[in-house]
């Protein structure tokens, strides 16, 4: 028995020749908000589906509250909730009927149901639509209803697969409010997302790429772990500058962002001054330069870059 709510051990899933998830290992503490971040095809969905018990791993195992999803899925099921990208709603049933059906599936006692419904309706603001068919709801409301259905049995572990995918900003905010509330009440949440700014809300994030873990830490510490710094620069000829910088020492990466440039620098006190000199020698004027907070996106790009080139100091340090 482990104290972790979720313990993933060498989880692997192959589809024929393709390895969707390879040797994934991490632990999630009880009450933690844990993010899984990565581009499409990174293996986020496959990982969550294996944790939810709807897909069998090709290798490895995952323990949820100390019970194996491989050998005792029935023992795991009552304690988890899984919400896929498109939560399956019965569109020919009303909002109320959908929630009631999921409550019945999990045999939620009648005595506690009214209280839970009230809370779920309050958060989701779906109360006025209780009698409406789920098929007549907007995309964002459907997703909120899905979350209500998933939460009605008060799971210990909530698995959310890109819950805000294609959802309008207001519903997205509502969804996160519900998630934060669940975490505050002690629920362990594992959420996958392709939005970096959402990942920054998490206590810890696992960065995945091509089925492998490329980084795992608090979002802030991941930034710090980068070592270098990020500078936001406005120059006279941004396009030419980006091209030129690709070959300049101390520059890890440079990218255009609107009318400014984000340059990620390597270690060293004089990194920026030498890069600046190099730009000016090219006749590119530096109009403005300010240190910027590295985003998870920067971290991600950097970590993937390191993984590709074979050196990976962050990974061994944080795992």
């Amino acid at each position, binding site marked *: 028995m482990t104290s972790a709510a979720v313990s993933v051990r060498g989880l692997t899933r192959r589809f024929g020749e393709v390895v969707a998830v390879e040797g994934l290992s991490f632990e999630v503490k009880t009450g933690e908000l844990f993010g899984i971040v990565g581009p499409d095809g990174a293996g986020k969905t496959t990982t969550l589906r294996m944790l*939810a*018990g*709807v*897909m*069998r791993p090709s290798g490895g195992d995952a323990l949820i509250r100390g019970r194996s999803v491989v050998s005792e899925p*029935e023992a795991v*099921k*009552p304690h*988890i*909730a*899984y919400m*896929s990208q*498109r*939560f*399956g*709603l*019965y*569109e*020919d*049933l009303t909002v109320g*009927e959908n929630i009631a*059906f*999921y409550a*019945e*599936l*999990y*045999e939620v006692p009648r005595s506690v149901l009214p209280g839970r419904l009230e809370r779920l309706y309050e958060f989701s603001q779906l109360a006025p639509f209780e009698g409406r068919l789920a098929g007549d709801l907007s995309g964002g409301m459907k997703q909120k209803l899905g979350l209500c*259905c*998933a939460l009605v049995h008060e799971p210990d572990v909530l698995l959310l697969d890109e819950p805000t995918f294609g959802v309008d900003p207001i519903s997205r905010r509502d969804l996160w409010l519900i998630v934060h509330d669940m975490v505050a009440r002690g629920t362990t949440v594992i959420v996958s997302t392709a939005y970096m700014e959402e990942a920054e809300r998490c206590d810890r994030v696992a960065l995945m790429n091509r089925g492998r873990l490329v980084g795992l830490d608090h979002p802030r510490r991941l930034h710090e772990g980068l070592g270098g710094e990020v500078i936001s620069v406005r120059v006279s000829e941004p396009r030419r500058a980006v091209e030129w910088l690709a070959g300049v020492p101390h520059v890890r990466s440079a990218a255009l962002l609107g009318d400014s440039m984000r340059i990620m620098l390597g270690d060293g006190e004089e990194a920026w001054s030498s890069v600046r000199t190099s730009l000016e020698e090219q006749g590119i004027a530096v109009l403005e330069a300010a240190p910027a907070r590295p985003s998870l996106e920067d971290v991600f790009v950097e970590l993937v870059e390191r993984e590709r080139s074979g050196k990976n100091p962050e990974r061994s340090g944080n795992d």
Partner: protein
Amino acid sequence: MAVSVVRVRHLVRKELKQLLRDPRSRPILFVLPLVQLVLFGYAVNTDVRHIRTAALDHDGTSASRELLEAFAASGYFDIVERPQRPSDIVRSLDRGRVMLGIEIPVGFARDLDAGRGVSIQLLVDGSDSNTATVAGGYALGVVTAFTIQRSGEAGAASRGLVLDARAWFNPSFESRMYNVPAVIGALLMLICLLLTSFSVVREREIGTLDQLRVSPITSTELILGKTIPVMWVGVLDLALITVIATTWFSVPLRGSLVVLAAGGFLFILCGLSIGLLISTVSRTQQEAFLTMYMVFLPALIFSGFFFPIESMPSIFQWISYANPMRYFLEIVRALFLKGAGLAELYPQFAVLAAMAVTGIGLAIRRFERSVA
């Protein structure tokens, strides 16, 4: 395996709610069986009546007129043409204006009274072989009855050898008596397949199947939750169709209602387990629909619904042994018309029961495997 009765009940309630709410499935439940029964009841009718007939009477005596009246009075023949020359009959047959031609020779009455052998000519359009055979048979019947009646009046001592065939169970050879009970089988199968083929695959498509799989519900509970509502609909439809068959179509129900209900129940289980198998195997609803079609049509053809199994090549007869509809049609036909009971029908019941149990078991197993 432990089955939570509460969960199954909730699932059943949800399924019923969806069935009754869906504007597409609602008519399937009760309207479709009624419409089909009435359509089949009238259309699947091999009786031959009002055969258009041309009659040429060379004799013109009261005896010859009596014979023609006997033809008309039988109800099977309508004498629509009275040509003057034999060639006119041929022309009418060629043009399809009539199906049958009758030619009575000169001296018909005289020879008949004298007790001499006499013959009349029948010309039948044989291009529709079934109708031609039936028409010929009816004509022979009319002539035989006429002969017996005449010889009785004449008090003739010898009537020779007369075949006096009597048909049991369906004395008037009405095909409806034979076909309407069979329609019950075809309809029950169709309804079961329609309602179950999509039930699992639909949930797979809309994504609710994943949610069910994450929940503590077991495969057995899920399959039970899917089958019980359809079973109820099937039983209700069986009752509905039986009432219409016996009242509107006046098909006699000579056997026991309980035996009919038991047979229907087993057959419904077979039908919906086939539907569930289709549903668990299919990836999309279109696939399920096509598979259902590919299953229903052969099931209908190799059941003895349209064509007698005995006249099929032996390989198809063998195939029909795997067809639950074959056994159910044997049951309903024997039950309605002959009043057969379990004592006669137990082999069919045994096969249906075995098929039902195997089918449901396979559906559950197959569903469990599709989870992986």
